[in-house]
């Protein structure tokens, strides 16, 4: 309150940088609180699961002394609150423990599998946006015509076609019979581990290394799974785009633009589309986040070593460290994407300032 006393206009006078710091501080606080909640959840899940963490490390035939030693080493003799703080400390320092299944630190595993998912999800989302948005706009503009109907059917198929079926059929036809695309996995076996990982995304790494042979191979492997994910997000994005556009096209300012003598194309893209960007960003961010969580089925069908199949396989082998670590990372990505989307709102909508 000291600020208010010294200068009544203190709030307005604060420099843009100070305001930025306050804003940034608030955002970091919001993220921290959300993450704390998430950590609490994963901690509880880790404790509630009927898996004895000690037993899974020392094995069933260990002596009682070995068991007790490990019990104390893991800090399980401490009160639960203290254990929670240990857990937070570990997570903050990037220590998610050792994965029992792979034998590596969970963090290293995630660094390995997450870029694979990210590569897939990013290309899928790009495809979904590049086709889905224009399709949705077109469907809204041509509402009720056969174009709208076709767009509806295309989206419906995208929603309802199970990926394990279309994925297998796609592999069978395009890879098995025609040989147009690469098979399961991220690369052909003889191309694996040639490119040194920089980002972990093979398309980027091979482009950085100017190894276009590997790049082409990676592309031929990613094209089908990414297209399937892209189709799925296209279905969602195009339907949402359509309904956003319909809402805008019936507003008064659209009539204003027409009264001015503007061409229909400019009315649609300059005026109506300019008003749905914020809503679209939300939808695209959510759909991208959904894909980043790992599309388990797609990753399993295509033997894609991503985070979805990593978490699922870990869960099936009761590898709780890996499950908890993976969940925390996915949650963090989700939160960060939301923050990023919110930053974009302010850029596209003057009212959000």
């Amino acid at each position, binding site marked *: 309150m000291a600020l208010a006393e010294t200068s009544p206009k203190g709030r307005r006078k604060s420099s843009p940088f100070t305001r930025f710091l306050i804003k940034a501080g608030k955002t970091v606080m919001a993220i921290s609180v959300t993450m704390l909640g998430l950590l609490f959840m994963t901690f509880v899940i880790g404790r509630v699961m009927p898996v004895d963490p000690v037993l899974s490390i020392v094995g069933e035939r260990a002596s009682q002394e070995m068991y007790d030693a490990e019990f104390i080493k893991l800090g399980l003799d401490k009160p639960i609150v203290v254990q929670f703080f240990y857990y937070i400390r570990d997570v903050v320092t990037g220590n998610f423990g050792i994965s029992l299944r792979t034998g590596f630190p969970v963090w290293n595993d995630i660094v390995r599998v997450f870029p694979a998912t990210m590569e897939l999800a990013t290309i899928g989302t790009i495809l979904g946006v590049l086709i889905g948005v224009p399709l949705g706009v077109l469907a809204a503009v041509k509402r009720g015509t056969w174009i709208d109907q076709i767009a509806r059917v295309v989206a419906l198929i995208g929603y309802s076609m199970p990926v394990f079926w279309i994925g297998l059929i796609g592999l069978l036809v395009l890879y098995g019979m025609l040989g147009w695309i690469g098979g399961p996995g991220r690369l052909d076996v003889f191309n694996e581990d040639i490119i040194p990982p920089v980002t972990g995304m093979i398309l980027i790494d091979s482009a950085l290394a100017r190894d276009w042979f590997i790049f082409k191979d990676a592309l031929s492997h990613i094209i089908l799974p990414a297209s399937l994910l892209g189709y799925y997000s296209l279905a969602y994005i195009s339907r949402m785009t359509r309904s956003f556009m319909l809402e805008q096209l019936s507003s008064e300012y659209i009539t204003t633009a027409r009264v001015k*003598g503007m061409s229909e194309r400019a009315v649609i893209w300059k005026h109506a589309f300019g008003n749905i960007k914020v809503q679209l960003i939300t939808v695209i961010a959510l759909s991208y986040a959904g894909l980043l969580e790992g599309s388990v089925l797609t990753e399993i069908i295509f033997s894609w070593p991503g985070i979805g199949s990593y978490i699922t396989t870990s869960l099936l082998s009761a590898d709780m460290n890996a499950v908890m670590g993976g969940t925390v990372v996915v949650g963090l990505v989700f939160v960060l994407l939301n923050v990023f989307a919110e930053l974009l709102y302010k850029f596209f909508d003057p009212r959000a300032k």
Partner: protein
Amino acid sequence: MTNLLDVENLWVRFPTRNGIFDAVRGVSFSLGKERLGIVGESGSGKSMTGRAILRLIRKPGMVEADRMDLDGVPLLTRTEKEMRSVRGQKISMIMQDPKFSLNPVMRVGKQISEAYRLHNRVSKAEAKAKTLEMLEAVAIRDVERVYEMYPHEVSGGMGQRIMIAMMLIPNPEIMIADEPTSALDVSVQMQVLEIMDKLVVERGMGLIFISHDLNLVSSFCDRVLIMYSGRVVETLKADQLHNAQHPYTRGLLDSLPRLDAPVDRLSVLQRDPEWAKAESVTS
């Protein structure tokens, strides 16, 4: 005096599930360099008449007329592309609420200069200069600042003045004002009307003023059409309004409270279904 606009037997029809709905039924009038008021209750077809002139009735709505000529040239036979050079440049329209009729994510200056640049091949700087000039003409101070504002940052009265600037900047011959003050505070209504009136008279334009406010229209316009159920039931010189003959107009006038002759109970308008059936009056 040659007419700017001649409308004969204008119909606006909407096909619905239960047959065709006629929103405007055989309206005829002509407009010179004058202020013509169109008065009527909600749903009487007055707004539809305005939009039909601009051919902005959305499909599946249909516009039909024996004659709808702008400067003696038919409007109905023009292509959509030809209509685009009519809209804004020849006939313009101000709508009810600036909160909705301005694009919320575009700076007002850009929206106004855009209206100018659609019809004039000029550079951005010239369009901006013209826009600032226009903003001054609608009595906005600090035009440079307003130019950079977004619609949510301006008041209703200022928003409507911005709207007027936007619609007048290509210098049209006819202005349709569709309830331009209904959404504004009473305190700024007169101010906005005066600005609009001044500009319309200065530029020698024809004005079609659509409103449900009889008194406002009679004080503001030269002639008044009274519409009911898609038809023109009566047409009067504005200063002859008290001599209105039609029972509907009389009913409307009687249901207005008057300061100089207070009554305990205002009379309620009794509608006669026969009114809707009668032919439109030509003016």
